């Protein structure tokens, strides 16, 4: 069991847990969106690190190069990043609407207002 060979997964997990912690421990909705973004980036890093081949190069065909890294995860993550920004924009739009409706973007204060009502 040579442990160093797995460090890419561990980096992913640390990042993922940081994002997860922000999402569940913070009440501020913008902070939660940032936490979700970190979570997303950790998944991206996971895919990209899976695609890496030792001694390979970027997947652009050229004469004299034999090993390329796996192009499929690159494609998936490429589109996922752009979709991520679109969904982030949607989440932020929802935050703005919540702020307009409740006057706050803190989760517990919104819950308090809901209980009062």
């Amino acid at each position, binding site marked *: 069991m040579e442990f160093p060979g797995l460090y890419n997964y561990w980096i992913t997990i640390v990042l993922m847990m940081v994002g997860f912690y922000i999402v569940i421990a913070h009440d501020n909705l913008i902070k939660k969106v940032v936490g979700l973004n970190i979570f997303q980036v950790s998944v991206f890093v996971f895919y990209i690190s899976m695609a890496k081949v030792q001694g390979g190069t970027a997947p652009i065909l050229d004469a004299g190069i034999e090993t390329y890294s796996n192009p499929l995860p690159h494609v998936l993550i*490429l*589109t996922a*990043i752009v979709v991520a920004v679109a969904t982030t*924009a949607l989440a*932020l*739009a929802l935050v703005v609407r919540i702020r307009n409706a409740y006057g706050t973007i803190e989760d517990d204060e919104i819950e308090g207002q809901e209980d009062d009502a």
Partner: protein
Amino acid sequence: MIFKAILRVVSKLLIPPIMLFALYVQFHGDFGPGGGFQAGVIFASAFILYALIFGIDNARKVAPAWATRTLLSLGLLLYASVGVAGILLGGNFLDYSVLADNPVIGQHLGITLIEFGVGATVSGAMITIFFIFAHQDG
């Protein structure tokens, strides 16, 4: 406001190269890193830079709401219609090989068209979202 003057001059110098670079990324994406997604974002960032420096209202004159919304929908429409064109010419949906006599040229044509559609939609979406967030009615 001396800083504003510097910003204006520098951004005037920078915006045309940014747009040119976006087009380069768009149409050179087949050969090097790049493609519709990146090109759309870079193209949109040129508009965002303009809006930040010269004010939202001036930027809205350059890129009115109807223009960005049309761009947004036309990109997706172009993408889907390339797929339908494949069916009409006797292939499968999104099968580019039938678009030209030579399958390889057909593939190339299809990919270029589709990347253009992607770029149009992404840039339209980004500009629209930015203007909405900047207080201006999208």
